[in-house]
């Protein structure tokens, strides 16, 4: 863009001024119009449902009959329900632990895959396979593999694999984190791979002249240079895990008991299984608020995002 702009700019300016109106109007008019399709989609599918959910959270509705005004009673009942802190706790447990597993792994894999060697390109293709599968398919597959009676462990007579993986509360949370990581590490590796390739090779050359080894280069050049990539990837992980639903729903349905009932599942159960759209909308509104707060927090942690990465170095 910046390269092509200078020669094009005067010519366009002349043409527009010779045509009709001032160049300012001529420029911003079509550009503003181009925003419209995205804006309309965002309003119709983003803002309108959001307002709808907020309104529903103050009503009583079973999904079938008439909608009645309920005032603040839904908010009061949900906020005083002991299920809510539990769901928030499980959500954050899965969020934080899966971040802790995914970030270092994707960072290392991404750095490794950024190398231009042929075998790495080949490995990269293999690593990305989990990304091609739908969450439901992954959940069904793992459910079959982890079955305590007909799964992988009993089939191969391996005792350490023959656990009640999805039937014990502590193990079930671990399994969910493992599968989430298995599924999303490829995606985040891809982001890091792109980030690492953006780092100018001159830095590494300078570092090796100064006598820095591979490990030193990784911590002193790669990681600091990837600061914004890490923030982007973390935002996606954190905000994404707030709405995590499909995999857990198919894998454990929130069980055993309520051990893996994250906020999104709690919302679904209240709304579509108990027919209580009001309380479900309260949870939905809470998820939106939490998501916004977390995204803002991560942006703050990243400092001013306007400064370019390479200029900062």
């Amino acid at each position, binding site marked *: 863009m910046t390269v092509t702009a200078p*020669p*094009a700019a005067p*010519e*366009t300016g002349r*043409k527009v001024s010779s045509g009709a109106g001032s160049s300012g109007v001529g420029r911003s008019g*079509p550009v503003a*119009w*181009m925003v*419209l*399709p995205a804006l*309309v*989609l965002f309003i119709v599918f983003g803002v309108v449902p959001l307002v709808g959910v907020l309104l529903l959270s103050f009503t009583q509705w*079973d*999904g*079938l*009959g*008439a909608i009645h005004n309920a005032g603040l009673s839904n908010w009061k009942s949900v906020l005083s329900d002991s299920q809510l802190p539990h769901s928030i706790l499980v959500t954050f447990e899965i969020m934080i632990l899966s971040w802790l597993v995914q970030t270092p792994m994707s960072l290392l894999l991404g750095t490794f895959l950024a190398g231009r060697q042929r075998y790495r390109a080949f490995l990269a293709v293999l690593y990305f396979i989990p990304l091609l599968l739908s969450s439901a398919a992954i959940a069904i597959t793992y*459910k079959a593999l*982890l*079955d*305590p*009676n*007909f799964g992988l462990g009993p089939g191969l007579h391996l005792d350490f694999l023959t656990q*009640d*993986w*999805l*039937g014990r*509360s502590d193990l*079930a949370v671990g399994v969910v984190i493992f599968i989430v990581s298995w599924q999303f590490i490829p995606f985040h590796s891809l982001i890091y791979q792109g980030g690492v390739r953006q780092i100018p090779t001159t830095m590494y050359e300078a570092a090796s002249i100064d006598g820095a080894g591979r490990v030193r280069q990784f911590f002193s050049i790669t990681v600091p240079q990837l600061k914004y990539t890490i923030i982007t990837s973390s935002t996606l992980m954190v905000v994404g895990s707030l709405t995590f639903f499909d995999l857990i729903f198919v894998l*454990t*349905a929130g*069980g*055993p*008991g*309520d*051990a893996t009932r994250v906020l999104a599942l709690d919302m679904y*159960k209240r709304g*579509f*299984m*108990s*027919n*209580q759209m009001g309380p479900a909308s309260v949870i939905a509104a809470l998820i939106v608020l939490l998501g916004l707060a977390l995204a803002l927090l991560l942006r703050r942690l990243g400092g001013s995002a306007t400064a370019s990465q390479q200029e900062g170095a």
Partner: protein
Amino acid sequence: MDPMTTSRRTFLGLVGGGALAAGLGACGSSGPQSTPGSTTGAGGAGGGATYWFLTGQPQQGIREAQVKRFNDANADSKLKTTEFQNDAFKAKIKTAIGAGQGPTLIWGWGGGGLKAYVEANQVEDLTDWLTKEQADLKNSIFPSAFTAATVNGKIYAVPGETVTPIVLFYDKRAFEKIGAEPPQSWGDIMDLVPKFNDKGIAPFSLGGQSRWTNMMWLEFLFDRIGGSEVFQNIFEGKKDGWSDPSAIKALEEMQKLIKANGFVKGFSSITADSNADQALLFTGKAAMMLHGAWTYGNMKSSGGDFVTGGHLGYMNFPPVDGGKGDPSDTVGNPGQYMSISSKATDAEKATAKKFIANNTLDDATVEAWVKSGNIPVVKSAKDKLSSITDKNDSAWLNFVYDTAANAKNFAQSWDQALSPTQAETLLDNIAKLFQLSISPQQFATNMNAVIGQ
């Protein structure tokens, strides 16, 4: 250069404008479509009558055959069908009906779910039609099947399909291995548990992740210990109904069995939809299983020689020593139910009524149900039993018929009888009870909080 930039701009503008126009066009065309949809309520294109039902053999094939016979005979008013998997159906049908996009014929389990439809004025009152125009059809059906179809004294659904009590299945080979007899009482069950565990056989198979599977145990224990009135009180909304001493005792007995490793390892991650619980029984990994009569067909077709070789045993749930319940009582589904959407057009309603009257309990259907190892909800089913030549099927069908017909009280499954709100809280707490993460007292407190909701 000059025409290049202009054309690129124009191009982008056109693309943006085109996308916008397409977006607006979509809004415009979806508007008129949804308006007649919400007034007719049928939701289907072309306005014909629609019917949604469940997948899963052998039921699915019988339902498909019914519709085919109807459509062949009524080329001008065909019935359109959509098939759903069980859990997906439960979620979809509620939202669809609420949005005015439900089918003309609403298939269901009656009870609390039907009551919710009635309260929202979504289903037709069929009392007059059944008692006047279709008196023969009404009289041919087991009277007990109408309880779950009746709300405030009016009939809103026609019972159809099959009577499916919950029974205790067992593997005769497993009992031979430990040299024991099938249990005659709850005490026997508790005594059998360590014997089976010593031989490396799980005493009971259970698909605990489905939750309603666990519920069947409580249904029987409540009945056997405290009699049918314990749940009847809860159903009628009596305050603190779940704290009845018999209820607490039943919950305690339940947890005793779980703590004694009465259920197969990993039961809380096994689902009933995948039939893995049945597989545990017919592969010899588990000795007994409490399950619906509808599982017989699958165990016969998937279980190798388990059924055909005469290894499958079955009995009604045994009594609990000192319990007040009648040992002939049973629970389960007294039938499946078909209602007609009140939002459908008169023509669609007429088609639906014609289908119910002519094709849901006709001779071909009754025969198909009996052949598949099920007892249809009609009195004439008994006469068909003598025509069954397979001795295993014949013994099984007579057992199911007698269990259903001789039951002093045939209770409807709790999650179907209660309102959806209570049912979900119930299933949720049952899962926690089986996980031993709440005590019987906490269970009762949690459940009392939603009584009558």
